[in-house]
């Protein structure tokens, strides 16, 4: 069994900022556990600009923002293990994790910071009728294919949901040579930031269909098209407005859910509204000494706000470790 003063679960922007802040407050023995091969979290695939205006007073891309914190983690000699998955948090802040390099680990932590981020909602949570062909991805998965792995998921794309990731992907796929047919949004106004509607859709003449949704998915092996329909004020499809749109790819940008499986299993109280742990003003959860920050608490619009919240959690955890 290993003992650390502070264990941070997740090496994305929240986890790194919390660890860096805790180190500044004097916590010497910090360990970050990260599931992916490298630190940085979702920022690594968010290659567009718009990050860091508040924290660094300049406009950075996601990888650049991540780099700033990875450099701080290295400079402060904060240890981390990549490829590590946390299996459970037991009482007494005993954390069980597994990684290819370290095998099964039991770590007793003086304090724990939850920074696992969030996950995308999928087709399963929408109940769109129709067949179940290949070619349906969440926008973030498509983003990973294009920006990290170098694959174009398809040539003719329809995007459901006008969240920021969906809008960013509309531009990204267009620049890489795909035709984005339309973005459908069930609400009467766009879900993402206005600047993204302007620079990702209007710049490329991509139609944004507000108060529209997809009522059927067509295709046997690969998706061949979708039926799009207008919705009324109750978000019910209006009969007679259906339109078939041919496509070989459907992206879903329909919201994010904090990723709290291990939080829930640990018996930590979850707020049903945010799907994140209930926290006090110091970002402490219902389990003493376990803190949380970033998108695992609630989904943030801006990474800068994640960083600020993580600094608060890092400070509070440092105070807990010091015994006050």
């Amino acid at each position, binding site marked *: 069994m290993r003992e650390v003063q502070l264990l941070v679960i997740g090496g994305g922007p929240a986890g790194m900022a919390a660890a860096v802040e805790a180190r500044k407050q004097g916590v010497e023995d910090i360990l970050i556990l990260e599931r992916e091969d490298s630190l940085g979290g979702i920022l690594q695939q968010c290659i567009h600009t718009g990050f860091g205006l508040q924290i660094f007073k300049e406009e950075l*891309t996601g990888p650049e923002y991540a780099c700033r914190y990875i450099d701080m983690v290295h400079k402060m000699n904060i240890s981390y293990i990549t490829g590590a998955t946390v299996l459970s948090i037991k009482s007494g802040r005993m954390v069980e994790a597994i990684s290819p390099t370290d095998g099964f680990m039991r770590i007793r932590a003086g304090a724990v910071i939850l920074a696992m981020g969030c996950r995308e909602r999928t087709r399963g949570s929408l109940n769109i009728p129709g067949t179940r062909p290949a070619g349906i991805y969440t926008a973030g998965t498509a983003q990973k294919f294009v920006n990290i792995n170098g694959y174009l998921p398809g040539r003719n794309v329809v995007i459901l949901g006008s969240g920021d990731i969906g809008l960013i992907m509309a531009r990204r796929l267009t*620049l890489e040579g795909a035709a984005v047919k339309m973005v459908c949004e069930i609400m009467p106004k766009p879900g993402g930031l206005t600047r993204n509607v*302007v620079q990702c859709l209007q710049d490329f003449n991509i139609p944004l269909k507000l108060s529209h949704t997809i009522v059927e998915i067509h295709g046997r092996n690969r998706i061949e098209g979708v039926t799009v329909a207008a919705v009324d004020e109750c978000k019910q499809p209006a009969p007679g407005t259906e339109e078939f749109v041919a496509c070989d790819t459907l992206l879903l940008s329909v919201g994010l859910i904090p990723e709290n499986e291990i939080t829930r299993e640990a018996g930590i109280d979850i707020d049903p509204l945010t799907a994140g742990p209930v926290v006090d003003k110091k970002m402490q959860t219902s389990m003493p000494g376990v803190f949380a920050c970033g998108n695992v608490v609630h989904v943030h619009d801006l990474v800068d706000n994640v960083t600020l919240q993580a600094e608060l959690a890092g400070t509070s955890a440092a105070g807990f470790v010091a015994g006050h």
Partner: protein
Amino acid sequence: MEKEFICIVCPKGCALKVTAVSESDVKTSDVTGHQCKRGASYAVNECINPVRMLTTTVRVTGSRQQLAPVKSSSPLPKALLHECMAAVNDCTAKTPLKVGDIIIKNILGTGIDIISTSNSSGAGR
């Protein structure tokens, strides 16, 4: 001339209005609706020469990764974005790369460089 824009400089998204005598002669003092200086110059630019940051990826060799993220060192003329994409997609960069390393110098004669936005190690395949 009267034109309306939504500012894309920051997430606030101010509604900007430009009222000028002619399209060729637009000054920051002709702009209303902005909450900061950058908004005013954005609106002037949109009238004269709209520009956008380009962020994309470039193929790399000598690394475990297939791609490295890159950006334009400053905003590029909007009309050249697709041509710049083609130039970046024709290019292969060698790792290791550091943030800020120049991948393509003076792309399409614009005076703007394409630069790396991550540290890509040369380790691996």
